[in-house]
């Protein structure tokens, strides 16, 4: 639409610079996330969520519009009256919560990933916050660079938005392919004759066990959960490490609760999820940022964007916890790890992985509607 074939050289150059700089910053951001991700997390699992509310969607729609419309007038008010910034922040927070509560690909991808990869609720919460933080960062960086530093036109920004959007969808699809590949293997193994399953399970756990010591401590609880297996290993070469980890980080939740088992791939795969989802900024945030910038209150816009992200994160984390709880409950109901139950759960994981892939492809091809970039 706004990217025309006969576009001027200036436009192309501006767009290229914009995209290049934004991508470079995103790489750095990704690296920072990678470093941060080494931090171990753990803790009690939050309890499941409430019953679905009636009339929810329409109510959300109305609230969102209302709240969003107040933003421009509040920013204008903040020019003369500093206290209006507080109003702006509370509005942004509310908007973040409502905006994310509606269906959207970000939540869908994160939730599917959590279910597919047997992640813990805690990790779901961390992923939700990380991706929302990244989304805010991208919006701020994009407007900061394109509008503030380069004084690019809306057309250029919209072009950058579109490029990022396509990148995000492609990443989600690629991520889905990877998940399907891994989970497809697990599903196929589970489909084999039952007597083979324990042997395969032990083999898989053995692998996880080695993995633990390299990466994080959630996987540890996985190994710990299968008691018989661990006993064998206590006498093995990993004995020392095992005890060490146990003392330092596993003081909590010793029960073999299946929903506490973090899936293989660990944080690194989680990072791909954050990146794929978080790389795409929200159109609303970009509009608010540009508006604030031109009113000479860019900092207020930046604050508003991050508070918006915080609100979004809370909602997405809630949904993630619901998804993880549902998975855990399904696992318990299906009779844990033996025979048909295991098959069922591998099937669920495979389906969730396939869903991520479908979302990515659907978004790329335009079958799944997403928020459009503000190009027009």
């Amino acid at each position, binding site marked *: 639409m706004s990217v025309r074939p006969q576009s001027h050289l200036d436009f192309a150059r501006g767009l290229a610079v914009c995209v290049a700089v934004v991508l470079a910053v995103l790489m750095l951001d990704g690296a920072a996330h990678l470093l941060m991700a080494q931090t171990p997390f753990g803790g009690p699992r939050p309890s499941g969520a409430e019953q679905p509310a009636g009339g929810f*969607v329409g109510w959300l*729609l109305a609230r969102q519009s209302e709240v969003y419309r107040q933003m421009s007038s509040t920013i*204008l008010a903040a020019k003369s009256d500093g206290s209006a910034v507080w109003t702006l922040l509370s509005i942004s927070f509310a908007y973040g919560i409502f905006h994310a509560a509606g269906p959207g690909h970000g939540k869908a991808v994160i939730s599917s990933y959590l279910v597919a990869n047997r992640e813990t609720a805690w990790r779901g919460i961390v992923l939700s916050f990380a991706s929302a933080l990244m989304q805010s960062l991208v919006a701020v960086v994009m407007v900061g660079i394109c509008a503030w530093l380069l004084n690019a036109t809306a057309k250029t920004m919209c072009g950058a938005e579109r490029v990022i959007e396509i990148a995000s969808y492609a990443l989600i699809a690629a991520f889905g392919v990877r998940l399907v590949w891994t989970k497809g293997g697990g599903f196929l193994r589970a489909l084999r004759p039952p007597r083979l399953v324990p042997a395969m399970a032990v083999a898989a756990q053995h692998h996880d066990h080695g993995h633990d010591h390299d990466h994080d401590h959630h996987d540890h609880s996985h190994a710990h959960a299968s008691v018989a297996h661990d006993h064998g290993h206590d006498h093995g070469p990993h004995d020392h490490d095992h005890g060490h980890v146990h003392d330092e980080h596993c003081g909590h939740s010793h029960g073999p609760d299946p929903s506490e088992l973090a899936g293989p791939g660990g944080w690194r795969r989680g990072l791909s999820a954050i990146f794929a989802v978080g790389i795409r900024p929200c159109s609303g945030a970009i509009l608010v940022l540009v508006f604030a910038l031109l009113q000479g209150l860019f900092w207020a816009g930046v604050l508003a964007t991050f508070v918006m992200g915080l609100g979004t994160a809370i909602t997405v984390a809630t949904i993630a916890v619901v998804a993880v709880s*549902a998975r855990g409950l399904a696992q318990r109901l299906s009779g844990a790890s033996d025979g048909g139950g295991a098959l069922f759960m591998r099937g669920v994981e495979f389906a969730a992985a396939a869903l991520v892939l479908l979302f990515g492809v659907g978004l790329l091809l335009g079958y799944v509607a997403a928020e459009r970039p503000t*190009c027009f």
Partner: protein
Amino acid sequence: MNSALRRLLGLLLLAGSLGFGGNVAEAHPHVWITATSEVIYAPDGSMTGVRHAWTFDDMFATYALQGLQTKTKGVYSREELGPLAQTNVESLKEYNFFTFAKADGKKAKFQEPVDYYLEYSDGRLTLHFTLMLKTPVKPRELVLDVFDPEFFIDFTFADKDPVRLVGAPAACQMNFQRPNDGTANAQKLGEQNFLSGDNSNFGAMFANKIRVECP
């Protein structure tokens, strides 16, 4: 076991509805347009086109004007806004100009927009453009819907003179209908779509309906 199963179903429903419900609540407006429209008639009494004047909300206007170089800061002449107007109408093409015409129930198609320009005054940015029908029509009942099916843009017609008929035969009666008040209806439709999974024409309930009857 039964209660656990029920809880699981509840959780799945909640997760599914929140996470995978499609584009229903994703679609909430980011751009607000205050519109006035003129329905244009030829001397022979056939309807030939529509002339729109769409005023953008201040946030979108600021965004659209960002980075535009002008001779005087804060003043945008029609010439300076020319390229932006060009971009606007080209972009709008993808969305069929958010204008959907039916002559006696049959879809009528528009040509490329003509006479388009942007006007900036009193801090308001207004896009003017004219859509001519590919072939003029002379129906008994003409219906014009103006809305964004995805509801990214909220179209609200002006309070005063929202729609005018230009050169219409005297016997023609115009009836303008605003979208039913948002919330209650949105709620109902939201639930419906949600359950049926069909939200392809979600924005239709936000349609502004212009109906002209010429006996």
